């Protein structure tokens, strides 16, 4: 098949996406239906084993029993990602609002400030949180010196720390899309709303939020997807107790050496996220229609 001239422009894109996106994804899908080799890798033989492991755990006598352990990890990961997304909306919206209401010159400065964390590797930034949160860390030292606490608070190695780490990592992805919609918003609509007897709260609810919904949805997608697959925050800030999907998958490929199982979890997660995205996309299209 020969490509029409304009389509040739897409060739570099197809090569990159084919090599680094479709190929690994396909491999993952194939691996999830293979048998695990004892020391990592796969045996090229069809098997449902990877998916079975997900729902059934062999008991002492080796008989598979239905087990919700892994489902719980999925559930808690989704829960953590949802909480992260919601917190990001509540922190990101006022921040974006503040930014968008500054004079134009200051706004550019704020955008730079919001993106500054990306200049440093996430691993290092997450490690910095350990230094802040640990028992003799910055937070406890300040609270102790201020006389607010007698004994150090356990801030690290719990769900709080993981959530904090996730919110911290992905907050800019929420702020920037909301900022983009706010910056484009017609501020005279707010004046019109106030002129038509709406107070500040009702203007926010009836006018500003509906007009910002595309930005909030875009931000939510950008936060939720990496958050659900994140393993760094859980690994470093959650200790051994906090297991997220990302950690579970990572563990299958490295310490457990069960590649098909790891691949199967990835496929299940991907399916779940895709389904969620389709729902959002449908809603998003509805909003776009509404704003037309």
């Amino acid at each position, binding site marked *: 098949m020969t490509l029409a001239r304009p389509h040739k422009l897409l060739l570099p894109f197809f090569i990159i996406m084919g090599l680094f996106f479709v190929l690994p994804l396909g491999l993952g899908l194939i691996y999830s239906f293979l048998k695990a080799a004892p020391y990592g890798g796969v045996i090229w033989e069809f098997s449902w084993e990877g998916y079975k492991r997900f729902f059934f755990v062999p008991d002492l006598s080796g008989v598979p029993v239905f087990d919700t352990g892994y489902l719980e990890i999925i559930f808690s990961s989704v829960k953590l990602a949802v909480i992260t997304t919601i917190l990001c909306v509540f922190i990101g919206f006022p921040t974006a609002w503040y930014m968008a209401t500054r004079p134009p010159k200051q706004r550019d400065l704020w955008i730079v400030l919001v993106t500054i964390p990306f200049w440093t590797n996430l691993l290092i930034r997450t490690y910095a949180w350990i230094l802040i949160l640990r028992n003799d860390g910055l937070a406890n030292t300040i609270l102790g010196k201020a006389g607010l606490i007698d004994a150090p608070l356990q801030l690290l190695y719990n769900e709080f720390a993981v959530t904090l780490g996730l919110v911290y990592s992905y907050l800019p992805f929420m702020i920037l899309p909301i900022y983009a919609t706010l910056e484009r918003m017609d501020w*005279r609509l707010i004046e*019109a709303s106030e*002129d038509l*007897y709406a107070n500040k709260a009702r203007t926010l609810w009836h006018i500003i939020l509906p007009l910002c919904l595309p930005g909030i949805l875009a931000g939510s997608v950008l936060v939720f997807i990496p958050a659900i697959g994140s393993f760094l925050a859980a690994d470093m800030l959650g200790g051994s107790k906090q297991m997220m999907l990302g950690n579970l998958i990572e563990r299958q490929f490295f310490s457990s050496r069960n590649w098909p199982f790891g691949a199967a979890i990835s496929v299940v997660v991907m399916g779940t996220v895709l389904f969620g995205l389709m729902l959002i996309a449908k809603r998003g299209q509805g909003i776009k229609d509404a704003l037309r």
Partner: protein
Amino acid sequence: MSDCLVIESVTKTFAHTDAPVKAVDDLSLNIRENEFFTLLGPSGCGKTTLLRLIAGLEKTSTGRILLSGDDITSLPPNRRPVNTVFQNYALFPHMTVAENIGFGLKMLGRPDTEIATAVTDALKTIRLEQLGTRKPGELSGGQQQRVALARALVNRPRVLLLDESLSALDYKLRKDMQIELKRLQRETGVTFVFVTHDQDEALSMSDRIAVMHKGRIAQLGTPQEIYHQPASRFVADFIGICNFVNGGIFGLSETQDVGFRPEDAQLNNRTHKDGDLQAHGRLTHITYHGATTHFQITLSSGEKVTLAPHTAPDLTPDSEITFSVPADRLIRCAP
């Protein structure tokens, strides 16, 4: 007629970068009940700022604003029984036309049935009964304009503020909307405060006009007073074309300039009445405007005037002509 809106020595200063700007400067004004009142002036004269002060969208620096005797100076916009038709209409893009119109009543906490009836009536008034379920983006400019008008009027405000509301429409539509606005104002009996820089619009629609200049009122009066007895040269120049020449041209005192409107002049008038003032000049240009023809005359003093007589004789450029102006049409005002 009683005063509906009283503006008492209101000043609005914008603290811009280095030099503060007085957009409205110690301005006082009484607007009567059921009046079609126009704030007319060039851009930057403070007319829109004054309108926004009345709406509550800007805070006064000093002075008071009274509405039916109540001091509303410190009330936020949502607590003033005043509605605005914005220059760009500012219709809510995510709501239907009906939701837009009903928004004010909804915020006032009126029952749904009452809102539905009011919205239906309002749609009928603006002759858009069929379009209640459309989104503003699907309407033409003129239709959006009418929706914006209905959205404000449906609340029966004490005062309706219109901010250059017709300037975005094309000529024909603007003429239609002018008539429509007048009709709505008569039917509803609401006091209209209309901001415009278009003198034609102001003259044809207003009961009274305030011509604004540099944050102050240059002249307040009926359209006839403003047009025929302008209080200053600025007003005379801003409202229509006005020729100002040295009085000596007409055999009057040379120490004072006098003005006259182009259409008050008569060309080569042999049967001029006593009291008409005559002058001579050389015809330099003829420009045809359809309804009128403008004759550019250079006087012996070198001054140039424009004449637009009701009856235009056949003339060729570069001919010497005589023209006359009735004495009672002469404009004598402060420079």
